[in-house]
């Protein structure tokens, strides 16, 4: 927008001023051009009203336009040099005796007066003119008599510059001059233009730019259309001055144009340069950055997914295949995954009594350790357990009725006794949890009260999402709380002895202002520690790299340049998974897109129609994660990448291995996952650990560090399959370290004797015996510190002993 343009226009004005005071003396016009009115001073007012009467009009100027062929004609005073003039025009056909109104206009111009007005007072009228017929153009002085320029432009009837668009491709194109008649669109109203067509071969982020050194001090304006020349064009966007190269006259503004858009392969786009500011030639570039769609989704609607809450994917029948869990007032509906991909068996389990509904969040885990997952439903007035009974054939509603304004809920073994406890973020008070006494009786505690763990004690609450993961790699679960209402997020370090220490400030994650309802937490850079993206529900995202060393957890804000700085989409729910199995963890949040991890801590968005955060799991057992959005399942379509799925069965640890660290090693490096019940804000997703391997099929080692401290190691694991891990299955019989007890003889024939370390006295109450595939083969009371195993088959087994405090211990033995 430069004022210097004004001069060019003045020079370009060709017509001179003559008397044109009456219809009879109207100046003839026979071709398009720019015409100058010095002063409106003609006295021959038109006798015929044309939208406007002669009220307040004392003078007019007359022109007689006669086209040589049929044109669409535009008469316009909407020119830069007329800025802040106030014009009005009427156009008639007929003759000076009998005139018919064709069109009239007062303020249809778009150029706003630059003295601060937002309205234009300039005129613009378009009409279809017939060859040889005379049209009288009458400007009046309704508002002012000052002179101005006006333009008459002609577009041949049926003319469409789009049809003549020159095909171009990525690279540099030279525009010799802008010299074709333009068409009026919402993108461009300039009179002249140059049209190019561009059809990318691949999906690409495309940038069209005249911001090139060769164009210095030129002034361009560009528009991009999609659609069809005849059936209609859609304006994709325009740019005037987004270039950065300043004119070296000393101006600080660039007049060059840069426009970026996402282009689809095979779609034709029209690139139109116009003479808004200049008709001079210049060069422009088209730059393509191909977008590789990392994974596509095949969407299927399952009409029987129609519960009140369809926010949970987890295995419900102990086969480690993810099932779809629906919750309604008195009904649990499970879509059990069958052997045929995409087919489900629907089972309804009636639930009696009044249950809190998971209106805020849901979690799943086997807290009664019977081999079947139980559910945790978090509402605004408290939480409810739906506990499995009778081998998963029925569920019992257990509603403790403590008032909790639940937000994120989790199953987690807070005191690491082998039994899952339940945690709930509290919206309006310090966080709460229920401790499992070892017999699935849940006892209520609130943080900050006497004898309770310190797990978020802000008096006013504001705790939106808790995520339990091991930030300092010390083998126990720390907790991150996403917060939104003012106070910063919190990181609570588990010191292992029932003490949780708030290290938010020390870790440097206590940034304010912050508004987040959930954060995406994973090892995004595959350097063996959990990084945090505080994904915003409003405002901006913050990406923190974990700089864990041997002693501390300290994070560095690496948002700048990560792709999270330019991601303006915000969301309540944000979850971290390797959706494309390329070996790098991605994030699904807001904006109908997945932020794909490119490595080097940079993320690139890829949009998918209507995709949003939902429960995640592998619903067709193909190793690619699927997403449930209501009754729609978005099946990840295998893209050739390789994968590994690890399913866990804890023995001494909690049944699901929640809190276990799963590490996999290969020529590509190391990847880690923590088993979590409840991440993001609302949804419950698979308890299986999913890894992508990219093009590699080599997994040298899988190491599972169980919450109990037991470490299982699998060497040379085959890719593209589930690895079923039973706690302790890979250990030798003497590899269990227990300061509490030993068993003998081992191997054993009939009776296992238990020797308890007198320094750590415990009383064992019950014993369970598992085979190495995790099947429980024997359950009995411990009598006289012996366990009878005479009836079980020869083989290697894991013995689990439960003490009188409900804590579990395990030991491997051989039966002969």
């Amino acid at each position, binding site marked *: 927008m430069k004022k210097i343009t004004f001069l060019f226009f003045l020079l370009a004005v060709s017509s001179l001023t003559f008397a044109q005071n009456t219809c009879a003396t109207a100046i003839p016009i026979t071709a398009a051009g720019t015409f100058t009115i010095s002063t409106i001073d003609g006295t021959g007012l038109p006798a015929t009203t044309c939208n406007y009467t002669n009220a307040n009009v004392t003078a007019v100027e007359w022109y007689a336009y006669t086209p040589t062929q049929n044109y669409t004609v535009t008469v316009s005073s909407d020119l830069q040099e007329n800025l802040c003039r106030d014009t009005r025009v009427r156009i008639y056909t007929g003759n000076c005796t009998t005139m018919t109104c064709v069109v009239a206009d007062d303020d249809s111009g778009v150029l706003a007066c630059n003295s601060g007005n937002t309205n234009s007072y300039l005129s613009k009228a378009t009409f279809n003119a017939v060859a040889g017929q005379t049209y009288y153009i009458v400007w009046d002085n309704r508002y002012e008599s000052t002179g101005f320029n006006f333009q008459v432009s002609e577009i041949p009837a049926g003319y469409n510059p789009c049809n003549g668009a020159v095909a171009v491709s990525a690279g540099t194109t030279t525009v010799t001059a802008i010299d074709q008649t333009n068409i009026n669109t919402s993108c461009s109203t300039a009179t002249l233009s140059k049209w190019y067509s561009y059809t990318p071969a691949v999906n690409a982020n495309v940038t069209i730019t005249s911001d090139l050194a060769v164009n210095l001090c030129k002034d361009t304006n560009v528009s991009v259309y999609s659609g069809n020349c005849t059936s209609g064009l859609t304006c994709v966007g325009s740019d005037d001055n987004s270039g950065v190269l300043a004119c070296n006259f000393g101006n600080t503004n660039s007049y060059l144009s840069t426009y970026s858009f996402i282009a689809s392969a095979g779609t034709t786009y029209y690139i139109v340069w116009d003479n808004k500011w200049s008709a001079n030639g210049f060069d422009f570039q088209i730059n393509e950055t191909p977008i590789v769609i990392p994974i596509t989704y095949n969407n299927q609607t399952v009409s029987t997914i129609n519960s009140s809450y369809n926010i949970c994917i987890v295995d419900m029948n102990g086969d480690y295949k993810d099932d779809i869990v629906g919750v309604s007032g008195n009904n649990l509906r499970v879509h059990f995954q069958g052997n045929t991909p995409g087919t489900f068996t629907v089972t309804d389990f009636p639930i009696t009594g009044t249950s809190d509904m998971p209106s805020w969040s849901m979690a799943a885990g086997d807290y009664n350790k019977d081999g079947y997952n139980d559910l945790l439903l978090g509402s605004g*007035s408290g939480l409810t357990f739906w506990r499995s009974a009778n081998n998963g054939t029925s569920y019992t509603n257990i509603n403790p009725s403590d008032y909790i304004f639940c937000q994120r809920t989790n199953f987690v073994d807070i005191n690491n006794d082998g039994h899952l406890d339940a945690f709930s973020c509290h919206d309006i008070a310090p966080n709460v949890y229920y401790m499992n006494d070892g017999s699935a009786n849940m006892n209520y505690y609130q943080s900050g009260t006497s004898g309770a763990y310190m797990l978020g004690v802000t*008096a006013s609450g504001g705790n939106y999402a808790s995520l339990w993961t091991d930030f300092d790699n010390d083998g126990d679960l720390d907790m991150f709380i996403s917060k939104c209402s003012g106070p910063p997020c919190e990181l609570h370090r588990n010191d292992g002895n029932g003490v949780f220490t708030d290290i938010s400030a020390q870790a440097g994650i206590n940034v304010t202002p912050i508004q987040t309802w959930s954060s995406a937490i994973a090892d995004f850079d595959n350097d063996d520690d959990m990084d945090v993206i505080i994904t915003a529900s409003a405002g901006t995202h913050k990406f923190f790299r974990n700089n864990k060393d041997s002693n501390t957890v300290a994070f560095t804000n690496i948002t700048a340049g990560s792709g999270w700085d330019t991601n303006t989409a915000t969301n309540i729910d944000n979850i971290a998974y390797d959706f494309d199995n390329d070996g790098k963890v991605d994030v699904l949040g807001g904006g109908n897109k997945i932020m794909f991890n490119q490595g080097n801590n940079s993320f690139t968005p890829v949009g998918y129609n209507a995709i949003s955060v939902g429960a995640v799991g592998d619903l067709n057992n193909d190793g690619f994660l699927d997403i449930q959005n209501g009754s729609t399942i978005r099946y990840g379509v295998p893209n050739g990448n390789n994968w590994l799925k690890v399913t866990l069965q804890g023995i001494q640890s909690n049944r699901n291995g929640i809190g276990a660290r799963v590490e996999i090693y290969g020529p590509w490096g190391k990847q880690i996952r923590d088993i979590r019940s409840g991440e993001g804000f609302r949804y419950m997703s698979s308890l299986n650990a999913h890894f992508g391997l990219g093009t590699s099929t080599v997994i040298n080692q899988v190491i599972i560090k169980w919450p109990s401290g037991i470490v299982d190691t699998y060497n040379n694991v085959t890719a593209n399959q589930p690895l079923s891990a039973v706690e302790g299955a890979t250990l030798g019989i003497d590899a269990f370290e227990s300061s509490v007890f030993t068993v003998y003889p081992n191997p054993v024939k009939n009776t296992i004797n238990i020797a308890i370390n007198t320094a750590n006295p415990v009383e064992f109450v019950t014993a369970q015996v598992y085979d190495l595939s995790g099947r429980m083969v024997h359950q009995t009371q411990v009598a006289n510190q012996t366990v009878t195993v005479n009836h079980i088959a020869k083989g290697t087994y894991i013995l689990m002993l439960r003490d009188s405090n409900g804590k579990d211990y395990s030991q491997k033995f051989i039966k002969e």
Partner: protein
Amino acid sequence: MKKNYLQALLLVFTLTIFSSCSDNDDEESYTPVSPVVVDLTQVPYPKLSDYHFFEGDLKNLTPSLNVIPYEPASILFSDYAHKKRFVWMPEGTKATFNGDDKILELPVGAAIIKNFYYDKIQPTDTPLIIETRIMIRKVDGWIFADYVWNDDQTEAYLDLNGSYKQLTFKDDNNVVRNVNYRIPSEAQCIVCHKYKQDVGGQEVTTFIPIGIKPQNLNFNYNYGDETKNQLTKWIEQGYLENNFAFPTPEHTTINYSDATQPLEKRVRSYFDINCAHCHKETGHCDYRPLRLSFTETGGVNGHSNMGVCVPTVDMQDFDPELSNLITPSKPSQSMLFFRINTTNESYMMPLHGRSLIHDEGVALIEEWINSLQNCP
């Protein structure tokens, strides 16, 4: 209600005479003494009757001497429950005026008492008092107490854990409604009755009353024996210092049910009492852009503070049409309207204090949104 107060005051008078007659003191030198006992070392008492705020049959809520009824011009919706409010201050103490829109600073020892009841419990069409909420000003700030009435309506017992009561009642328009009435827990009391401050990086919460702003009391109230501006009454009672100018009409809230009042003022009054305790600076929801106190909705930014043409954040799970808090003349495209017109607990506003939709309030807001033509 007004009749009841008349009876109440008559009863007080009668009791006063009765006690003076039964007293052996010289009648001419006799000064009636309020029976109210608020021992700050002992409160909250286990029973409502322990305070002696009321005389005679407890359920009549007949105020004792120096227990003064009051009412805000604009009333919080609480699932159609009716309320009777009273204030009491120790003899010789009075409240301080801090501004038209500031909560009156009540003296240490003061108590405000709010009884929640329904007039027509079904099927008997009989009244039932549910709870009596009391705030007491101790030396280091306000405390909360909530007394839950027994079914016999003879006593109410301290319970700050919160509970539910399933009720069927007729509202003022004789519409029969069911409610799972929520008696709040202390944590819920705090959500609204507080303001937050940042003190050295730590959030410090201070508990406060809500309704007793001068601009909300500045109207004539029928005390039975007289009708008088409540601020005047408080001054005459010795409950309020007399060193301030009463709020001008412009700075005074109104009864939002009064259809003779200007629509916008009704809406601002409605927002003030129903929303502003959270949606104000230092309130529970001050991280959101809404600023709904009567003062904040009145200035040049008033409409922006009320959310007119303010984009909604956190659109997850919502209809994209709800992308503005208020879209002029489009209630169906206004997130605020959606939230007050639902009982889905994930979406509803207010989050606390109601489980029913306030039909009349929703209609008021709808009328107002429809009346809006432009963005601010």
